[in-house]
């Protein structure tokens, strides 16, 4: 008797749990949340990570000066394109978020001035030598010595 009651209870609970959303009209989201990265933003992040790797390879002597400069130029250009695409996506879909526009302008300026951290993507105050969020050295003009001290500091892209 107890077994039958338990069984009925179990099945009823499961059925209720499953049907409840449909009957009550509760629903799960099926769209990207607005603070999640879009394709273009993912691309931008990937480019920044690639930039970090190039920096590291150069600092540890795996990349020659010439290749380093060329790769850095390419990647910076890719990052800018991704940023422009991201901007296009956001202005199309989120016109109601003006701070976003400011953010993009700030990030883009930061990329050009070398205040955007290549490691974590955070924006830093102009003139910063190190990223305030992750502590990685930034590529600002006239900032200190090269990572391993032997290689000359490159010009910002």
């Amino acid at each position: 008797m107890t077994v039958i009651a338990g069984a009925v209870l179990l099945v009823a609970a499961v059925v209720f749990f499953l049907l409840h959303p449909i009957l009550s009209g509760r629903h799960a989201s099926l769209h990207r949340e607005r603070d999640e990265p879009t394709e273009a933003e993912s691309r931008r992040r990937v480019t920044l990570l690639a930039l970090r790797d190039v920096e590291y390879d150069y600092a540890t002597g795996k990349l020659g000066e010439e290749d380093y400069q060329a790769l850095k130029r390419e990647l910076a250009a890719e990052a800018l394109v991704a940023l422009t695409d991201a901007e296009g996506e956001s202005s199309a879909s989120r016109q109601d978020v003006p701070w976003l526009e400011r953010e993009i302008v700030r990030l883009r300026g930061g990329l050009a001035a070398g205040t955007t951290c290549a490691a974590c993507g955070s924006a830093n105050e102009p003139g910063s030598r190190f990223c305030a969020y992750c502590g990685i050295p930034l590529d600002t003009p006239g900032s200190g010595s090269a990572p391993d001290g032997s290689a000359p500091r490159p010009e910002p892209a």
Partner: protein
Amino acid sequence: MNVLGELALWTALPVALWGAVLAFVAGARQRGDLQLSAERSIYAVFFLTVLASLGIIDAFLNDRFEYLYVASYSNRSLDTFYKVAGLWSGQRGSLLFWLLFLMLFSSIAVWSNRRQNREFMPYVVGVLASIASFFLIILLFADVNPYAKLGFTPADGQGLNPQLQNYWMTIHPPTLYLGFTAFTIPFAFAIAALLSGRLDSRWIALTRRWTLLSWFFLANGIVFGMRWAYEELGWGGWWFWDPVENASLLPWLSATALLHSIQIQENRGMLKVWNMSLVILTFLLTIFATFLTRSGLIESVHSFAQELRIAYIFLGFMSAIIGVGVVLILWRLPKLRSENQIESFLSREAAFLFNNLMLLAVLFAVWWGTMLPLFSEGFGGEKITVGPPFFNAVNIPFGLVLLALTGIGPVIAWRRASKQNLKKNFTLPVAVGVAVLAALWLAGARHGAALATFGIAAFVMTVIVVEFFKGTRARVRIEQERWPFAFLHLVARNRRRWGGYIVHAGVVIMFAGFAGNAFKAEIRQTLDPGETAEMPSPLGHSYTLTYEGLSTTLAGAAPVRNVRWQVEALLRVEKEGRPAGTLTTARRALIAQEDMPTTEVAMRSSFLEDLYVILSDVPDLRGALANDPNAQTVTFTFMVNPLVGWIWYGGMIIALGGLIGLWPDGVATRARTPVRAPARAGGPVLAGAD
């Protein structure tokens, strides 16, 4: 409890099917309510599977021998420890166990993505629920229901295979199963990416940690299995290229390839089709491993006939995975085009590609060697079996190339590396490798493959140490940190890179341990009490072992630890004439498994070698058990296994590196969080973290 458990298993199938259908409909029609119901079905199936598993454990603990499964794998005096482990002792229970872990991971994946990556989720849930349905169909309809009854109640069960009555039984299989099942999540996300059409590197970022988790459990599970074999099976080895061992190695190989090649996609936008295929292949191999070890196919080809139904269902499922995968990839081919091309063969991506090819070559060789008996009997009628010589001949060269690549990859830059830089970075490591080779040659070592392993291992280790040194030095200079802090921060800032290097270091040490096997020494000797044996070590010294005598145990009314009888030999050890302790090695038979006596080996482990003693034979067992003074003669096998400990040390270092790579690094996943990153530090651990 048992009835409720069985009911839960039957209820789980319609719930899983409901979830599978609803999730795909929710995706196609964009119906959020159906999606919520489908996601709830995942939690519901998890809950029902927990009930079903508890029901089986309960049946074991209460000696419910009316259940076929309990009667086949337990007996009354079996340790409680192994009764709980009964859930995964045999085919029926372990399929349920597989489902339990699958649903645990599925629930974690659904829960951690309830507010993010929503565009993937209908398809992710659909795939997960379909896989759950598949396992439930097998459990319920392929004669492997763990709740199947005998129709009568035997007085006692048949007991558990004595070799499984070892503490590794509670560690090794669950670890492997965690590895197999965790890979379902990357597979589900990959299929979701194909179906939803969002094919940028997002799905890779979302599943990289799951892939690493699966890889981590597989790696540990394999090493645990090796250790178990070494301790329990008593032949002094740790790997026999046994089909069951091979089955666990296959998905690990392809997961390793994937962990490398996704870096090329993330960094360079290349190899999208390749990565997609590797995900599908790896998942297929986790299912294949389960199929091979749990369908009954592997013990004997003849059991195929008896297990026809489960084999066909598995084959059908695997064909469906391949079919769906191929069709989806072909359909999305235009969106999977490579964004770049390999610029130079002297580049990290080229090295990674080569690493992938080598890993797949090993994978194919192992797969072929494992399946050959089946194929040959199926097609030619004559069963051809290949053993360790085949696997070693094929895999040692591939393994050495892979080992060398472990050292080359990290030092080559992405895109293009200049010869000049290569020369600069390779001079020291190559010199160290050659020096080690020369030193070993001068010391008298002449085994070609082993020498090559040691030389390459020294080269790779130098590369890794230099990498750590350079990175730390850079931090010391720039951040003005002290060396230990600089080192810790270096690893913490890019856990993926440095965790990977630590894994490489573990692999190197493990390979050195494998190579030590080439210098193994073994003698077999029959001794009377008081007699001694001389056991020379390949490292120059020698051991003197004195056989002191036997002690015996016979089970009385209340058997201890399920033992029917045990004969234990005591040996006094001297190393170079100095006392070095005692060793005991035993033969024992367990209750309900008296016809399968096992050997308990004795080990004296040190950093450089293990002294390993096996009680190979007790000629007059009956006399010995009766404590007859004239029946004390026994035969021992003495072994010295050089560097075997390095395999376990290497395994621990691999696990450490894997943990470092897995550790959440707090780098935010959401687009704009870098700006307010500190607030989100320590965010989601798995899906959703990158």
